[in-house]
């Protein structure tokens, strides 16, 4: 546990000693503000909730989260520091989890800094703050799932760009898996259970459920298992690379 924290601490300070964290956080805040107020029309809706705010998160994260996570392992490999890190008396899991947690903290910080929208809706009306809290938790879990997937693509390649693009494609698929363009592809020939299965892979299905204020254990479990499975895969890939 101590090793995980040591690694996470180093990674977080790494994020903030380069412009990455600042750029991502600022862009996230600007874009989420723009989409919430200008496109989503928070004021015009005349409702005291943050649906117009959270609905954009899966799409904003689609680009910003891979930008945070793309260097996690690819930079280690490119610079050769992975050789240093993995010959220290730590397990690869400690390194994987530590790095993942650090990137999650950065995205979490971006999320925390959106607190003015909560103040805004609370000032203008009386929203259900329970729902808002649930949505924040859901959004944080969503970001975690994205980051874990980016961790996998980052372990695959030495190139941050390749890692970024791979993540975006995978995440895009996970977003639209429940939407008609994808389900229509399957519906004509695939059995119903397969269509259902693919649709249930979609992050949207689970994220929307949480946004309604229902923290269903199945949805939480979905995000946690995506994180767990992805981090496990990261470990397998790193081990495979070392084995040559």
């Amino acid at each position, binding site marked *: 546990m101590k090793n995980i924290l040591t690694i996470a601490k180093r990674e977080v300070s*790494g994020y903030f000693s380069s412009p990455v964290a600042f750029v991502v956080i600022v862009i996230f805040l600007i874009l989420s503000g723009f989409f919430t107020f200008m496109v989503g029309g928070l004021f015009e809706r005349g409702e005291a909730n943050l649906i117009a705010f959270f609905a954009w998160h899966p799409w904003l994260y689609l680009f910003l989260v891979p930008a945070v996570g793309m260097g996690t392992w690819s930079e280690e490999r490119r610079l050769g520091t992975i050789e240093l890190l993995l010959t220290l008396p730590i397990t690869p899991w400690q390194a994987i989890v530590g790095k993942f947690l650090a990137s999650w903290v950065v995205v979490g910080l971006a999320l925390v800094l959106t607190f003015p929208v909560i103040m805004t809706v609370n000032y203008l009306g009386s929203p259900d703050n329970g729902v808002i809290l649930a949505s924040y938790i859901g959004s944080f879990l969503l970001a975690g799932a994205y980051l874990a997937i980016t961790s996998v693509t980052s372990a695959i390649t030495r190139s941050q760009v390749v890692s970024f693009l791979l993540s975006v494609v995978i995440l895009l698929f996970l977003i639209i898996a429940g939407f008609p363009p994808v389900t229509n592809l399957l519906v004509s020939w695939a059995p119903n259970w397969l269509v259902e299965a693919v649709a249930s892979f979609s992050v949207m299905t689970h994220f929307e459920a949480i946004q309604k204020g229902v923290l269903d254990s199945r949805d939480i479990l979905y995000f946690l298992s995506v994180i767990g499975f992805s981090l496990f895969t990261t470990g397998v890939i790193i081990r495979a690379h070392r084995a040559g």
Partner: protein
Amino acid sequence: MIKVRNLKKHFGPKVAVNGISFTVERGEVLGFLGPNGAGKSTSMRMITGFIPPTEGEITIGTHDIMENPIEAKKLIGYLPENAPSYADMSVHGFLSFVGELRGLSGDALKRAVGRVVEMCFLEGVLHQSVETLSKGFRHRTCFAQSIIHDPEVLILDEPTDGLDPNQKHEIRTLIRRMGEKKAIIFSTHILEEVDAVCSRAIIIDRGTIVANGTPAELRQRSDMAGAVTLRLHEVSAQAVKSRIDSVSAVERSIIVSESPVVLRAFPRKNGSGDELAQALGDLALRERWHLQELRSEEGRLDEVFRNITLGDSDTALRNGAAAAKKEEAK
């Protein structure tokens, strides 16, 4: 401290390391020599537990690196090739980070960082970020991290690569000093380093050990070993050569240059260089040559290195088998 038995590594169809065995005890500095791509770095990566071997056993202290990696890695300090480090960190931050993962904390960590900073002359750049450092400083920073926990085993992959002559000298002195108490393996392309630092050297070629011995023993394998070089004044080289060839201790002689007259005589297979030098000294006295120099050659490592690693693969394999046998006998 370090035991390596029948170590093999295949990358797909390519055989990078093909069955090397050796041991390094505390107080020994083992030099790893070999041409590029001979398998030096791959071997070191396996010994430090970075990549798993295809076959073979590695024991550090009493721990098998595969079965008990954490305990084994605790005993090792490792300087990877090209001395990687986290560019965004300060020297102090980087050393503290490694120290913490090495299980140091509080005062012990502070003392350890202070110690290696002093040993590696890093005081001046302590709070500079690694990416702003010159190559020499970056190298020493990475070297410092490898000794921060005062390890019993030190694995150094080209520790003097890219350093200027003064820095090379500092690092060598450091390695030699630490070699008194630790088991050290280091790889190098610079043969003079072997003489300066190693108590024993291994030459690896195409994944096998082709020579294993003290620097002096290795030099003995050179053709030059035991040869005697003469420099003379006011005589004809040909005349001298014919006289030298008549000496019984001489196997053959060559004229190195006509003016000044320099000749080199090689001893017979089982004759010693000392005998030869004596015989030639006597000859010079008898002939009343104006001898300006008479020198016994020690043999040259670079020549041994070239002979061994450029030789046809058959010789390399035979040498490898012989070296392996010798190791087993130990």
